[in-house]
């Protein structure tokens, strides 16, 4: 009897380990405090792309395929753990000028009026991430940070793109600094299928249009050998835009695979 109990317990623990692996806290780790193994490269389509520089240092970009338009690079450094909490920091730069000049055009695709001159601009962000494993099949991450911008010239306040996703990401170039804070909670349902819930908040100074929120909820699939990940879900956005407070519900899809 004791032998059978031991076998059952061993199987359960193996399953538990597999469940933890399928949670991919080392891979496709997005906004968690964990970093991927050295030399691992994950290419994201509609998702973040990342490369492990070292086991505790990761380079990523949210839009690798359009990097030539929207250079945006982040370095995540893992600092270690303490009493079950895992700590990391993220630092990045974002150069939107090429993209904004491209869409400041006549005709279809003109998101900004071509009458506006877009200066060279750079945003620098810094963030702290703290992850915790409340139970074996889940990772809870809290993040907080700030971002500031350096503009080489004046940016007309009416050149904003008053649309979700765009507006909060470019708002720091009109009103700064930006403070952000969020929560990411992800876990496993069954072996390769999981869920991901996040809420990100952005606050901007010197303006009445100073708060934005994005909430994601998605189902994820990670392949057996951790070589690809698919996410489908929704993104719910809220913002204090210039024309008024607005909610938007958008589809969410992500696909990333290991090269």
């Amino acid at each position, binding site marked *: 009897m004791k032998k059978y109990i031991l076998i059952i317990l061993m199987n359960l623990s193996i399953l538990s380990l597999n469940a933890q692996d399928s949670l991919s806290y080392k891979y496709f780790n997005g906004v968690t405090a964990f970093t991927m193994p050295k030399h691992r490269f994950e290419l994201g389509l509609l998702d973040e792309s990342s490369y492990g520089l070292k086991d505790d240092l990761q380079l990523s970009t949210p839009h690798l395929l359009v990097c030539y338009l929207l250079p945006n690079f982040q370095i995540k450094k893992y600092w270690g753990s303490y009493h079950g909490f895992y700590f990391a920091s993220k630092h990045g730069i974002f150069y939107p000028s090429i993209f904004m000049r491209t869409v*400041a055009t006549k005709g*279809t695709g*003109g998101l900004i009026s071509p009458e506006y001159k877009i200066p060279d601009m750079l945003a620098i962000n810094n963030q702290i991430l703290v992850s915790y494993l409340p139970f074996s099949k889940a990772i809870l991450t809290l993040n907080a940070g700030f971002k500031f911008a350096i503009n080489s010239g004046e940016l007309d306040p*009416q050149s904003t793109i*008053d*649309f979700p996703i765009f507006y909060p990401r470019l708002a720091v170039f009109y009103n700064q600094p930006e403070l952000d804070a969020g929560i990411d909670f992800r876990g496993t349902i069954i072996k390769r299928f999981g869920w991901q819930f996040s809420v990100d908040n952005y606050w901007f100074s010197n303006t009445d249009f100073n708060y934005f929120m994005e909430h994601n909820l998605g189902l994820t699939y990670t392949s057996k050998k951790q070589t690809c990940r698919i996410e489908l879900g929704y993104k719910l956005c809220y913002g204090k835009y210039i024309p008024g407070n607005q909610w938007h519900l958008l589809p969410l899809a992500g696909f990333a695979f290991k090269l």
Partner: protein
Amino acid sequence: MATGFNDIEDAQYYSASTIKYVPDTFTSLKVMTWNIRFGAGRLPWFGDACGSRVVFTENEIYTNLSDIVNRINLLKPDILLLQEVDLNSKRSAYIDQVRWILNHTYFNYAVSAFQWKAQFIPSDGLGRLEETNMILSRWSLTDAHRIQLALRNDQDGLTRYFYERCCMLNCKVNLPHNNNFYAVNIHTSAFATDDSKYKHIVSFEKELDRINNLGGIFVAGGDLNTLPPNTDTTDFCMQDMCPGESFHTSNSGPHKEGSNYAPEQNWLNSLYTKYKPAVTTNDYIMNQYKYFSHTDRPTHFWDRTLDYLFTNKSWISNSEVTHQEAFSESDHCPVSVSISLSK
């Protein structure tokens, strides 16, 4: 991202924050129509004036709006039909012009209907655009409806999805001792090259027929974007041409969108026959220049008539005025006329 409309919908109602006194007895009403070009004055907007500007500042719009309300307060119509009144548009600094005009004039009530409503137009930096037609009155307004007009078929599907959806706005004006008085405001398509503008005019006439058949009295009009019958000059392609454009390179064209009215010469004949225009055909033929109410070119005087008023009762003789002196407030000037209400 762009709003579609049902064939007939309720319009939006507004009332002034303070209701001013209105007379209880009167024998005539002054009616005016004005396309106010979303408060942009004569500024070089890209869409209609060969301009390079898309978005105007708050200061620019408020300055022009002030000129507009000053003109309205000077001319003092009792019922006012306005076209191109922005509600919440990026191009006009998101100013609520509907409420601003109501609050800065002596009018007590207004109704409005969307002519164009899109949350975000991904073209030319237009962004959010909400444009309305409005009817303002000193007396209360009821039974206000937005009537959808035919969409253009000469545009690709994507453009048509984000483009304006022309409409008529009608309402009952609750005059003292008269419970059968209606106002109808229309803004037809300016640039259609298919038959949609003609359909708009047909729909307009049908609506007037409907009110007339019910025994109602109406004052109706707006920006019909076509010329009166017997107009001498019907082709403005060369006058309206922007730098870099070319037209009339062959016998049959090409023509600039919205500038060649030659095929439209008979479109208003039925309206002129059935109902009373503010400017009779004879008066117009005698001196067309006096009644020109629009020009595309910001520095040129009015060169065509696009704005009209009709009634099924009687206008007071010689009361029509095309206010051509209102040159800087818009690319259209206001047109006013008085209706006799004596029995």
